[in-house]
């Protein structure tokens, strides 16, 4: 269990993390999502007691990380892949970390085998690919058989096989009742791995919700209607739904369109039939996870390429449902 309360971090003028309150609970993969520079890594360092918060607090299983008697058994962390001396072999790297907490070579061999690095364990880490570095980082995180796992961008640089491997590993770790807290800027990956999402932008909490809810809220469950008599149909729809978009002219001789929220396609179709209005298109608009993410974080991206188009077509709706009562 990781709990952050009003967690803040200020670097001079910059507020990197701004009164962040969230929780990651055992048995779940919690995705920690945000654009680059949103404050994900800073938050993770504060969880591990590496950086001191300038406000608020964060605990792991109810205790500040630095107070734990069995740190490696409490939390396993991967902060950066290849955060290892390039001249040291992965075996010796793991052994050094293991020994500091009283673990021995046997445990090192176990985790090396687990991540599939047993055959290159004696090679110097400087020769490792980014993917091997990630595997070594994951091995380091697993050394102490921790109840909480904290992984910063673990699939970066992995090949497709490796990505699937990490996905399954994280799910199985959560399945064993562990707390898995994993950051990423890749929305699609999180959709497949996480069951809960903590989304931040510019250090602030944007959403703390389940993946399904996140998409549903962001896309708003809208239906897109195209009809030659769009204006009349829109008036009829307005009697049952208050959230109806303006009619937009169709392109290239196509019928004009408008969107509706809160109504099933079947209801709209029956309504049109009942009034003898032709319908050319009737589709559910499902925002992709990427799209939902972009819309929600559009205002919170710190760096954007000059002149880059705003991905959001609609103003972002706040999606904040707090799991905790």
């Amino acid at each position, binding site marked *: 269990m990781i709990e952050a309360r009003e967690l803040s971090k200020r670097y001079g003028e910059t507020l990197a993390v701004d009164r962040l309150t969230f929780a990651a609970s055992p048995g779940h993969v919690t995705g920690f999502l945000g654009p680059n520079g949103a404050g994900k890594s800073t938050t993770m360092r504060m969880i591990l007691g590496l950086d001191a918060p300038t406000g608020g607090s964060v605990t792991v299983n109810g205790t500040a*990380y630095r107070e734990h008697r069995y740190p490696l058994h409490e939390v396993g962390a991967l902060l950066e892949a290849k955060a290892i001396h390039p001249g040291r072999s992965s075996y*010796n790297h793991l*052994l050094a970390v293991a020994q*500091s907490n*009283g673990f021995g070579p046997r445990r090192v061999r176990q*985790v090396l085998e687990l991540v599939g690095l047993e055959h290159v364990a004696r090679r110097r880490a400087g020769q490792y690919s980014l993917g091997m570095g990630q595997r070594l980082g994951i091995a380091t995180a697993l050394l102490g058989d921790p109840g909480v796992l904290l992984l910063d961008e673990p699939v970066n640089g992995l090949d497709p096989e490796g990505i699937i491997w990490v996905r399954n590993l994280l799910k199985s*770790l959560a399945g064993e009742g562990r707390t898995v807290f994993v950051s990423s800027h890749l929305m699609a990956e999180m959709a497949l791995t996480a069951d809960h999402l903590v989304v931040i932008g510019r250090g602030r909490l944007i959403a703390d919700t389940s993946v399904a809810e996140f998409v549903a809220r962001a896309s708003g469950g809208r239906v897109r209607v195209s009809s030659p008599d769009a204006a009349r149909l829109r008036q009829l729809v307005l009697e049952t739904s208050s959230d109806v978009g303006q009619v937009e002219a169709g392109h290239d001789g196509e019928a004009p369109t408008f969107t509706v929220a809160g109504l099933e396609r079947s209801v709209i179709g029956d309504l049109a039939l009942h009034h003898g209005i032709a319908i050319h298109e009737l589709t559910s608009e499902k925002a992709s996870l990427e799209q939902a993410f972009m819309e929600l974080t559009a205002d919170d991206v710190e760096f954007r390429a000059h002149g880059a188009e705003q991905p959001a077509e609609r103003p972002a709706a706040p999606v904040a449902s707090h799991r905790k009562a």
Partner: protein
Amino acid sequence: MSAIAPTITSTVRPDHRPGPAGVARSEWTKIRSLRSTFWTLLVTAGLTIGLGSLFALGRTSGREPIGPDFNAAGFPFNALFLSQLAIGVLGVLIVTAEYSSGMIRTTFTAVPQRGLLLAVKASVFALVTFVVAAVTTFVTFFASQWILGRDSRHLGVSLTSPNALRIVVGAALYLTLCGLLGVGLGALLRSTPAAITTLAGLLFILPIMMNFLPLSWHRDAIAQWLPSNAGFQIIEKVAQPLQLTPWVGLAVFAGWVAVTFAVALVLLRRRDV
């Protein structure tokens, strides 16, 4: 790779926690697992033994006037002027390499007690350095005295002659302190170039700069307290004018190292990693 579940769980025992013994084993693994450690120690030993023998050989040419107060035992250890930098750089690197690679975050995650970590890291390094340094200074002594002994004036002395043992052991202690100064500066400054520059500044440049200050500024009274000036008195046969006595000088040098560590420790506890 496909079978995940069976090997994840291990049995955690009560001793699976950071303690001095475990951290010492860990730091020893870090030191011995890098080839650069071996090479730097070899360079330190080679420079000391090589230059020490060379200096001894220079005195046997016959052209050098040798006075009655010639410090036969200590003279070859002027080689430390150079080798002190090699061991100091190794001390710097065992700390700053962890920062530059990012390993330090893993280290402090595994051992959140930062004071314990620095203390144990420094102790393990000091032990390794002292063993190598002692072998080096004894070899330097016997090699240089053998060379001096071949001179017709029989300039060489034995280890049992007055002050000889103190000089040889003291030289090893001096090298160890130089390495520790590097560790302290590394922990204080966290950056390899900054720490090495400061190390060279303290050991080399500061004493030279003192020569350009006017005498009326109590130059000599100040200069004797500088780290390398004070520390180098340990290789003198007898106390030198305007200098501290051998053991007091070495103690003053150790004081510099202690102050560096005290500041590093305070900052280490307070700073973000």
